[in-house]
């Protein structure tokens, strides 16, 4: 039941019974509801903003604009990239003189009833003198739109291209889409009776960081603020970052002395929450006569939207740093220009920067295979780093860490993936074509990253009943963290995981947490829990030895009790030992701290790099441009699976989101900068009809050397290469000589590709 078991999730019963505690499930007596008034214009000067009529509306308690805020606060960067100064591009909590995207917060109303607040919001008079909107990052008019320029690379790139036998270049645009969790954001801030304390429900992902920032912005001590652990209806990178509302709602609670709740609606979610992914790649590879890569370059324009938010320029930095992927690349240069446009600002979305970079690189390799006359699998085999080359350090940094591919056998995983795809009949099925339907097979390799440090802290304690409690700095965003940490604890302590109670993300219970993001919860959070639980085990044995007057070497902890080996009668349960460790116990020595508990901090300075291969079979209707994914395989090295069922679930869910971003989901704008996807009618999340059963080949052959559990992250390997694999399959289906050019592959785009193929002599 410990590590490796397919244990049903401990979260499930409450969620299945409707007893989860999501944001809007929690209310406080006397609460006010907040309604954000947002900019209707993409770019303009705010000539007037008048809330006087709104504030007179029935039930409205207060209306605030930027003029009411203390000191015109802006939201700082959480993930700073060395050498970049983004201070001129940060988002104000409320816009004052200028609005820069549709949806930018301008004012907030609070009142007794959310319906009345929405009515009153209509009475706010907004007069904006429109200015031209910048909507295409490639044609941004001047340098003021460039927030940062980054280069990552090494080696003699120009020399590599000069002496190359073949140079292959493609362009690929990746469309703007994002995490779009099914639960919109929600915040409830409850001030204490003396207005000094503040309880917050709805902060997740990085609650300690957010608490500290909020404390600084409010000018209060951080321990007065408590973020509570609640359920979150999906995270995917977007939920839990510090947004304007994360200041506004607590500040209004402090100001009014009443609880304030804000429940985002879907229309505002789609314009307010971080967008992601929009990049334009011009990627090129130089090959020698044997099809081996001599050099790789990518010139990237990132459309970052109107501001730099908490992620700063971390997403394009990740693209540039990780672009070479699993290959032997002697010389590399990735350049990114981060451009501001009049659209919703961007941040991370599951596999940030890598979904985009993997799509560009792997699509380039397929085009190269065609041009070089080599099978795409063969071309990859020639260029993959071998097991003997691991660990492999690339002279680049990302997220402030050196990039060291720590372990693995990339060729073996590719071979296993191809073998499995063939066993399942993928390539045979892809060969079929009927009428206007064309089928294709696509494959892509990728390297993920996981386990970002620098630390995670965990407390493990045993209470008088013998129950085991874990207080982790990770947070629940739906990934099953309670189950995983319970399994790790159970393994170390010899108890049933169902007897372990995990609290993840309560800043009072665990004030030193670093949060759940970057596929770090199991790797870094799990390692901290493992260390703390192991320390509790040692403490239990130490106490038992004292009580039983036995030698520690003769004792063992199994099934929740310490026993003397060979003497079943001499047995102390964890409940007995917790009582023996309680204050005033006669078993405690003078000055010895009470409690059967331990706090441990796991520190790590390098990430661990899982890897995998995706394979897809698609069917393309050349008449309508409709693309259907028929088969999908993920082969993934995870080091060690704490719960293989949950790992498979992460991979399958990631594939579904990836298919959405590759075929369906796109935030489009009209020429005035008005968003065209503001409901689920236009922003098309995939349904069960668009997602095929996903085959998973889970590999545990390369335990990570960087943590005591040997684990690698599982959160992002399912989505990383979907754009690449599906684009390659569509290209194969159509017999395209070059790049598909642009994701998502909407019917209009695919129809245009079919026409292009017809002119150039492809299959279609």
């Amino acid at each position, binding site marked *: 039941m410990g590590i490796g078991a397919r244990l*049903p*999730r401990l*979260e*499930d*019963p409450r*969620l*299945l*019974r*409707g*007893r*989860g505690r*999501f944001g*809007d*499930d929690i*209310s406080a007596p006397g609460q006010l509801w907040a309604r954000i008034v947002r900019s209707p214009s993409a770019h303009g000067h705010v000539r007037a903003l008048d809330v006087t009529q709104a504030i007179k509306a029935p039930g409205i308690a207060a209306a605030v604009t930027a003029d009411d805020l203390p000191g015109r606060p802006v939201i700082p960067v959480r993930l700073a990239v060395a050498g970049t100064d983004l201070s001129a591009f940060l988002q104000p909590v409320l816009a004052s003189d200028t609005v820069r995207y549709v949806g930018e917060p301008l004012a907030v109303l609070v009142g007794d009833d959310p*319906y009345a607040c929405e009515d009153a919001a209509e009475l706010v008079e907004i007069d904006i003198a429109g200015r031209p909107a910048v909507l295409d990052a490639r044609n941004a008019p001047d340098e003021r739109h460039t927030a940062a320029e980054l280069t990552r690379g090494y080696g003699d790139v120009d020399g590599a291209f000069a002496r190359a036998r073949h140079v292959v270049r493609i362009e690929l645009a990746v469309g703007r889409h994002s*995490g*779009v*969790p*099914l*639960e*919109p954001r929600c915040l409830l801030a409850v001030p204490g009776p003396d207005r000094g304390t503040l309880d917050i429900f709805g902060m997740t992902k990085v609650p300690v960081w957010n608490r500290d920032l909020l404390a600084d912005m409010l000018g209060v001590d951080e321990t007065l603020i408590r973020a509570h652990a609640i*359920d*979150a*209806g*999906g*995270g*995917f990178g977007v939920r839990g970052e510090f947004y304007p509302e994360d200041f506004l709602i607590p500040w209004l609670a402090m100001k009014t002395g009443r609880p304030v709740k804000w429940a985002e*609606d*879907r229309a505002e979610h789609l314009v307010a929450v971080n967008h992601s992914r929009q990049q334009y790649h011009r990627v090129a590879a130089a090959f020698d006569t044997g099809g081996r890569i001599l050099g790789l370059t990518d010139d990237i324009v990132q459309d970052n939207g109107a501001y730099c938010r908490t992620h700063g320029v971390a997403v394009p930095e990740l693209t540039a740093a990780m672009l070479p992927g699993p290959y032997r690349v002697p010389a590399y240069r990735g350049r990114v220009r981060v451009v501001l446009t009049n659209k919703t600002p961007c941040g991370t979305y599951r596999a940030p920067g890598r979904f985009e970079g993997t799509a560009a690189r792997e699509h380039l390799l397929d085009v190269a295979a065609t041009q070089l006359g080599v099978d795409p699998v063969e071309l990859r085999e020639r260029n993959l780093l071998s097991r003997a080359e691991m660990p492999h350090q690339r002279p680049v940094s990302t997220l402030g860490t050196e990039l060291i591919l720590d372990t693995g056998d990339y060729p073996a995983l590719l071979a296993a993936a191809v073998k499995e795809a063939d066993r399942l009949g993928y390539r045979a099925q892809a060969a079929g074509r009927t009428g206007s339907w064309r089928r294709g097979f696509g494959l892509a390799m990728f390297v993920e990253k996981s386990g970002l440090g620098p630390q995670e802290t965990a407390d493990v304690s045993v209470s008088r009943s013998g129950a085991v409690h874990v207080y982790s700095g990770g947070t629940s*965003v*739906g*990934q*099953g963290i309670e189950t995983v940490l319970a399994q790790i604890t159970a393994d170390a302590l010899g108890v049933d995981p169902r007897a372990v109670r995990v609290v993840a993300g309560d800043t009072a219970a665990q004030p030193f947490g670093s949060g759940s993001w970057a596929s770090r919860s199991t790797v870094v959070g799990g390692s901290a829990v493992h260390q703390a639980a192991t320390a509790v085990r040692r403490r239990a044995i130490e106490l038992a030895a004292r009580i039983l007057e036995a030698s520690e070497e003769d004792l063992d902890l199994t099934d929740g009790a310490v026993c003397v080996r060979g003497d079943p009668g001499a047995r102390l349960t964890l409940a007995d030992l917790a009582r023996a460790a309680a204050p005033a116990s006669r078993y405690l020595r003078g000055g010895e701290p009470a409690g059967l508990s331990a706090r441990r901090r796991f520190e790590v300075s390098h990430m661990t790099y899982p890897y995998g291969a995706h394979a897809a079979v698609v069917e393309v209707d050349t008449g309508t441009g409709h693309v259907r994914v028929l088969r999908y395989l993920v082969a993934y090295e995870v080091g060690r699976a704490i719960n293989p*069922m*949950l790992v*498979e*679930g992460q991979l*399958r*869910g*990631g*594939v*579904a*989101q990836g298919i959405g971003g590759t075929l369906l989901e796109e935030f489009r704008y009209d020429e005035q900068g008005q968003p065209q996807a503001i*409901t*689920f*009618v236009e922003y098309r*999340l995939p*349904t*069960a*009809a668009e*997602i095929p*059963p*996903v085959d998973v080949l889970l590999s545990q052959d390369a335990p990570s050397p960087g943590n005591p559990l040997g684990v690698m992250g599982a959160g992002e390997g399912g989505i990383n290469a979907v754009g690449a694999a599906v684009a390659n399959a569509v290209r194969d289906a159509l017999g395209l000589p070059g790049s598909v050019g642009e994701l998502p592959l909407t019917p209009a785009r695919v129809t245009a590709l079919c026409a292009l193929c017809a002119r150039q002599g492809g299959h279609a």
Partner: protein
Amino acid sequence: MKDRHEIRLTVNGREHELAVEARRTLADVLRHDLGYTGTHLGCEHGICGACTVILDDLPVRACLVFGVQADGAQVRTVEGLADGDQLSDLQQAFSDHHALQCGFCTPGFLMLAEAYLSEDAAPLTEEQARDLVAANLCRCTGYQGIIDAIVATARARHKPWPSP
């Protein structure tokens, strides 16, 4: 001046009487007036299906039904599925097949499937289950676990005798 109407509805067998504004949705009545917060709102425009409840034997989007329209009706919500501490067969199948991750959409899928299974006890194929499930949105699972759980529940319910 609010336009209030007295309504009476039965939720999971329990009768409630309250006064609601004409424009108040059934979802808000259930969640905020009566405390059945298991019914979730994911889009409030009838696409995602997270708010699906069973209204007089039919699955409906509670965001597209006004509270006044439920006057005199029988409503079943996710809170009514389990028998005390005992999960229903469908709920248990969702856990067994890892049909949920964040769990936010789960009540809607459960009520959608329960309405279907209550009406038609015949086993359904994977394709039929996929068609059914395509009515609602899940952002975490990729749907396969949900489909498997519904197929397994339908098969088990159809057995003429209890399994050993």
